[in-house]
């Protein structure tokens, strides 16, 4: 058998197992919206850890990261820097959101914000911002799947077909089982990703250079500019400190605000599950290092891939590994992409229905669930089409999406932390911040010190939120209490609390 046929067979087996797990998971969950969206709030620590890690690490990290290490050197280190900074607030915000979710029945981020700042316009605005951010993120996952397939099958499975097959599988199990499917497939996919990353990350530099140290010595000799911050831009010039630092800050601020990640607060079995996930997260983060090593291994390699996003499969193929290993790598990379893509697809559809449609049309449970399923198909199709047509750089797609996601931070934090915030304030901030971000995205040369447009948007967002809130009347006395009152964490509690908020 030709190598590409063995690879395809291994990948087909992987996809079949994933699909089976995804379909089986759906059986135990109720057929309600809460079941479809929040898996009846029953995820324990193991599932939570892998769901969180596998959801976060995607084609962006698995393909985009080494692509940046290969082409832009130390610039890629921004990716290693922001994760822990970004997830830390979840330790406190997550349990609070979870408690509000149990008390008021929230299943989405916007429901929490709108609970505090009642406004159907705000609900739609948040839904629109979320969907706007989700599309490029989903696009990059589909691109990642397409890249991997095309590269490792020597072109026999072209980009558009690989992306379609991988996402066809995702579509089936998301439609059938909702978020429960995502949990258990992520456990499987997370284990795969980590194993592949560490083994290949050590194997490839060792095979090519005799070790990781020797590899970096060789790079420091031949191309020292790759090992000094802030690294290079896509066209090989020096990147700016403003660009590098603001990429870290914009990504850290927006990290927790991704609605599909934030809404995981509502699926945890207990507050302690969320906290333990945060504590364990740095261990997941470290897997970026072997991934970067594979990208660096390509720097002095005689042949080059078609684009830097292809460097990982390029190195796997060029270092003469057996077809079975190549197939397993491909499955690992697909894991990375699918385990995020499924959460994005599911999240985007849930949010569009719960926050964009339901406030206006009373939909019963069955119809709401059906509407979500239809939107899963529609959004998947839109992202697929754009991914195939635009073929943009994976990291740049996400970095752009972050500018939009950052604008969700002021409403969320204001809801949970600031009593004096008002609905008009939040609306003004969201609108102004988003407009600013979009403006500076298209007029990038106008950004002072190359600062990320998301941070510029935040300046406007927060200023308007504060000014408009203070200029108007405060909210009804007591309304904000449930959201803002400091609630002491329950230590070691593994049972959900009752409806009332409880002090320790």
């Amino acid at each position, binding site marked *: 058998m030709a190598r590409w046929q063995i690879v395809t067979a291994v990948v087909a087996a992987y996809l079949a197992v994933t699909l089976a797990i995804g379909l089986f998971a759906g059986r135990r969950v109720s057929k309600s919206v809460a079941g479809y969206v929040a898996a009846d709030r029953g995820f324990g620590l193991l599932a939570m850890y892998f769901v969180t890690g596998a959801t976060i690490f995607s084609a962006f990290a698995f393909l985009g990261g080494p692509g940046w290490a290969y082409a832009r050197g130390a610039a890629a280190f921004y990716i290693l820097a922001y994760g822990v900074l970004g997830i830390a607030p979840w330790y406190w915000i997550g349990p609070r959101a979870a408690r509000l979710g149990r008390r008021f029945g929230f299943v989405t981020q916007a429901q929490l914000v709108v609970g505090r700042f009642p406004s159907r316009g705000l609900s739609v605005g948040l839904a629109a911002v979320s969907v706007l951010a989700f599309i490029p993120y989903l696009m990059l996952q589909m691109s990642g799947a397409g890249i991997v397939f095309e590269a490792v099958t020597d072109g026999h499975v072209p980009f558009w077909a690989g992306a379609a097959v991988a996402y066809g599988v995702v579509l089936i199990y998301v439609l059938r089982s909702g978020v429960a499917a995502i949990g258990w497939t992520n456990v499987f996919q997370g284990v795969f990703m980590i194993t592949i990353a560490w083994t290949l990350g050590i194997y490839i530099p060792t095979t090519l250079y005799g070790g990781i140290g020797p590899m970096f010595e060789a790079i*420091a000799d031949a191309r020292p500019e790759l090992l000094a911050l802030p690294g290079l831009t896509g066209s090989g010039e020096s990147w700016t400190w403003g660009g590098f630092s603001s990429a870290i800050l914009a990504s850290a601020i927006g990290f927790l605000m991704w609605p599909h990640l934030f809404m995981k607060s509502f699926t945890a079995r207990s507050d302690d599950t969320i906290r333990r996930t945060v504590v364990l997260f740095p261990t997941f983060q470290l897997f970026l290092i072997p991934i970067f090593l594979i990208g660096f291994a390509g720097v002095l390699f005689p042949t080059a891939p078609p684009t830097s996003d292809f460097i990982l499969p390029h190195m796997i193929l060029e270092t003469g590994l057996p077809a079975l290993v190549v197939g397993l790598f491909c499955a690992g990379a697909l894991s990375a992409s699918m385990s995020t893509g499924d959460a994005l697809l599911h999240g985007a559809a849930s949010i569009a229905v719960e926050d964009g449609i339901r406030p206006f049309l009373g939909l019963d449970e069955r119809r709401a669930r059906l509407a979500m399923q239809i939107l899963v198909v529609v959004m998947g199709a839109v992202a697929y089409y754009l991914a195939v047509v635009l073929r943009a750089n994976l990291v740049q797609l996400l970095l752009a999406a972050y500018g939009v996601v950052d604008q969700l931070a002021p409403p969320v934090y204001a809801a949970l932390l600031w009593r004096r915030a008002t609905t008009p304030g939040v609306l003004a901030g969201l609108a102004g911040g988003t407009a600013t971000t979009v403006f500076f995205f298209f007029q990038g040369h106008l950004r002072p010190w190359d600062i990320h447009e998301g941070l510029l948007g935040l300046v406007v967002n927060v200023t308007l939120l504060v000014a408009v809130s203070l200029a108007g009347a405060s909210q009804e006395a007591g309304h904000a209490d449930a959201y803002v009152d400091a609630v002491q964490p329950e230590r070691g509690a593994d049972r959900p609390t009752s409806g009332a908020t409880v002090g320790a």
Partner: protein
Amino acid sequence: MRNALVVAFFVAYAVAVTYPGVLPFNRAYPLIAGLPFVLAWYAGWVVLAGVVLFLYHSLPDGD
């Protein structure tokens, strides 16, 4: 007190990984476990954050 310390840690983290806090550590040598010094610097902060979070989570209130 615990809360103030953990917030201070993350502020220090943000300073250490961005400009200008990272400048003194922005070099390839010496290699640490084969990694360029600056990469080891970032990895070290990630590990440290894990330790800090673990301690914060495990130790009782009141520091």
